[in-house]
């Protein structure tokens, strides 16, 4: 067993205001666990893919309020930490099959988009370094493709929404834009549709059954000598 503490400088952090001494190399998430906290809310994938651990912090001596994912950010001496495990917002419901990929659709569901002040606070708050303001503006213009592409890496952690002075919930807007883009701008893939039809018509039934019923030794030879397309 290796203990970090032996070769790791201890630092001071404040979790929701409470002072703790923790090893300085830990992420915010692990530092909170080190202090004795067992997560119920505020922890998810622990790998930067789910946005459950959105966190706001101020560094020692700084007036700036910064955002991060607790699982991806290393603690710093004097850091003040508050988790924001949920941002209040209503995701509008819609039937994707009845929509058009344009600005009126976006504005119908999220009219507050037109209140965007172009202050860029959302972009500064994003732990994924996404150009949030740019995709909000793109959706307002009806540039659904740009809105979809710029917002693609969004984890819906909510930090942009809690910081926006115009009270926009950018991640909901991005989600609508992406579904519209895929469904109406990109559309289905022909070779996928073709293969689905072939399967439905039973084209592969016999071949697959033959493999299913093949004696093990023959199946092994078949597998070991199968032709492979190299990358």
């Amino acid at each position: 067993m290796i203990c970090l503490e032996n070769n790791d400088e201890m630092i001071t952090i404040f979790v929701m205001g409470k002072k703790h001494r923790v090893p300085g190399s830990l992420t915010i998430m692990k530092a909170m666990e080190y202090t004795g906290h067992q997560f119920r809310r505020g922890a998810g994938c622990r790998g930067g893919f789910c946005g459950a651990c959105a966190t706001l912090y101020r560094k020692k001596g700084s007036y700036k309020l910064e955002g991060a994912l607790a699982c991806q950010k290393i603690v710093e001496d004097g850091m003040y930490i508050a988790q924001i495990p949920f941002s209040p917002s209503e995701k509008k419901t819609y039937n994707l099959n009845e929509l058009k990929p344009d600005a009126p659709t976006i504005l119908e569901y999220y009219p507050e988009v037109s209140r965007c002040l172009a202050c860029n606070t959302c972009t500064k708050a994003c732990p994924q370094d996404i150009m949030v303001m740019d995709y909000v503006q793109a959706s307002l213009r009806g540039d659904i493709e740009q809105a979809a592409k710029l917002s693609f890496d969004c984890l819906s952690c909510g930090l942009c929404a809690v910081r926006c002075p115009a009270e926009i919930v950018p991640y909901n807007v991005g989600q609508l834009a992406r579904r519209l883009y895929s469904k109406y701008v990109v559309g289905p893939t022909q070779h996928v549709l073709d293969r689905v039809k072939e399967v439905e018509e039973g084209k592969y039934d016999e071949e697959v059954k033959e493999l299913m019923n093949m004696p093990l030794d023959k199946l092994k030879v078949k597998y070991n000598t199968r032709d492979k397309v190299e990358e």
Partner: protein
Amino acid sequence: MSDYTSGYPEYMHESLKKVAALRPERIGKHFRSMTADEKQQILKDYHPDWKMDQKRELKIGSSKGQLMPHEVANILEAHSIISSKDIDLKKIDYDVDILIIGAGGAGLSAALLAQENGVEPDKILMVTKLRLGDANSKMSQGGIQAADAPEDSPTHHYLDIIGGGHYANKPELVEAMVKDGPDVIKWHEELGVIYDKMPDGTMQLISGGGTSRKRMHSCKDYTGMEITRILMDEFINRGISYLDFTCAVEFIKDDEGQVAGAVLFDLDSDEYMVCRAKSTILATGGFGRLHIQGYETTNHYGATGDGIVMAYRAGANLIHLDSTQYHPTGAAFPEQIVGQLCTEKLRGRGSQPINKEGEQFVYHLETRDVESSAFIRECYGRDNGITTPTGMKGVWLDTPLIDIINGEGTIEREFAAMFRMFKKFGIDIRKEPMLVFPTLHYQNGGVEINVKGETNVKGLYACGEVCGGVHGKNRLMGNSQLDLYVFGRRAGKAAAEWVKTAKIGKLTLKHLDDYEKMLKEEKIKTDRKSPILLPEYRGQKTLEHHLKLL
């Protein structure tokens, strides 16, 4: 001072220079894949599954005698966290047609299909331990397999799966997977999933370990995140009910022996609740957070194996739990992200595994079990690994090759998540390799199901990682993503069908008393309780690393 600019400690620079120096020679050079005999030998010598002292035969229940890791046997040979006396089954808090436990890709697919097959949205209840969509499904990076390319076929896919799974797979489940595959992709596109495509509008497909055709569809390296969030969005659009931060802790049965709902636990109020349901769908995912053999894991915080425990106490059969998947490329450095996934797509795009001398030591696209074994051999059998500051070993994954082979900008475009993660910790994977070591990734076995997603217990359905049989004893990349949607949809459909004629008798938790009796009869004296619901990482446990490798 070293003249080498690097995100790695100075003592690693000599090895890194060798990796860079030999890189030009390695481009385009084919490293031979192992023969069938060589594969068997290296698995036997180095794969964690072959360490027999790390497993034992299960002492109780319908799958008594099956071999499984101690960590899994420990949660099965344990007391329930509730007693039948604690719960008043006359007070029903939720009375629904279908209860779905788990809100990842499998559970969400099941919910959508149940609704499409005639169950009212307010007669479906999904419960999830954490948030909607919090699951391993979301963390899948590299892709999803489906045989829809003209040069590919479900037959090729079948052969790759069954051979990769060491022929232990249930053939009819594999057949269902490969035939449903293209339809799953079609369904995703209808729902608005943005798959990576070529300029001509065809799918951008790549190879994975053990695939004979380019079959991997991806959404950059956020594949699971993109698909899951769209299923979540659609789930909410359809108005299906759900309770988050609510765990299921045990199934409820009726006097006919069928599963008839579950006892729920509210993580906010710490109260138990009773949910009666005509069909119950188990979609709780895997067990990575049990840290089998002390391995770090790629898995979600909630992956504590709760589903197998509940299902087993209710009498469901288990299968293939002796086999566990270790993903070859878990991060070994920096310390903050040790064990986290470095997608197989990195190898699919040409990254090679390299030892401390800068040499490739294994074909880069062997199946995961073989590839992992080769990494372990290189570190611990041949001492050709690189030791990290915390004493762990790893090998290089030469990511700069990706941009050299596929053109500058490929990493930033296709590996946004990986690039971002390593950049945060000071490593530019366009210029320097990653340091990697196998990490606990996937529960190959689990609850046994048939092609409809039915278990051997009436009224109980299961889908996704909690199940076994589909992947045999080794799963190929991109097949768990496919598995979720194939069997999630099938289970949802079958459960909706069963609702039409199902009749629930008197509710009971007698099976928990019976399980207690079995523990006593087998003289299992333990204070262990399960399901464990949340992993324990508090205090010093934050700092522990205890790989039992040698």
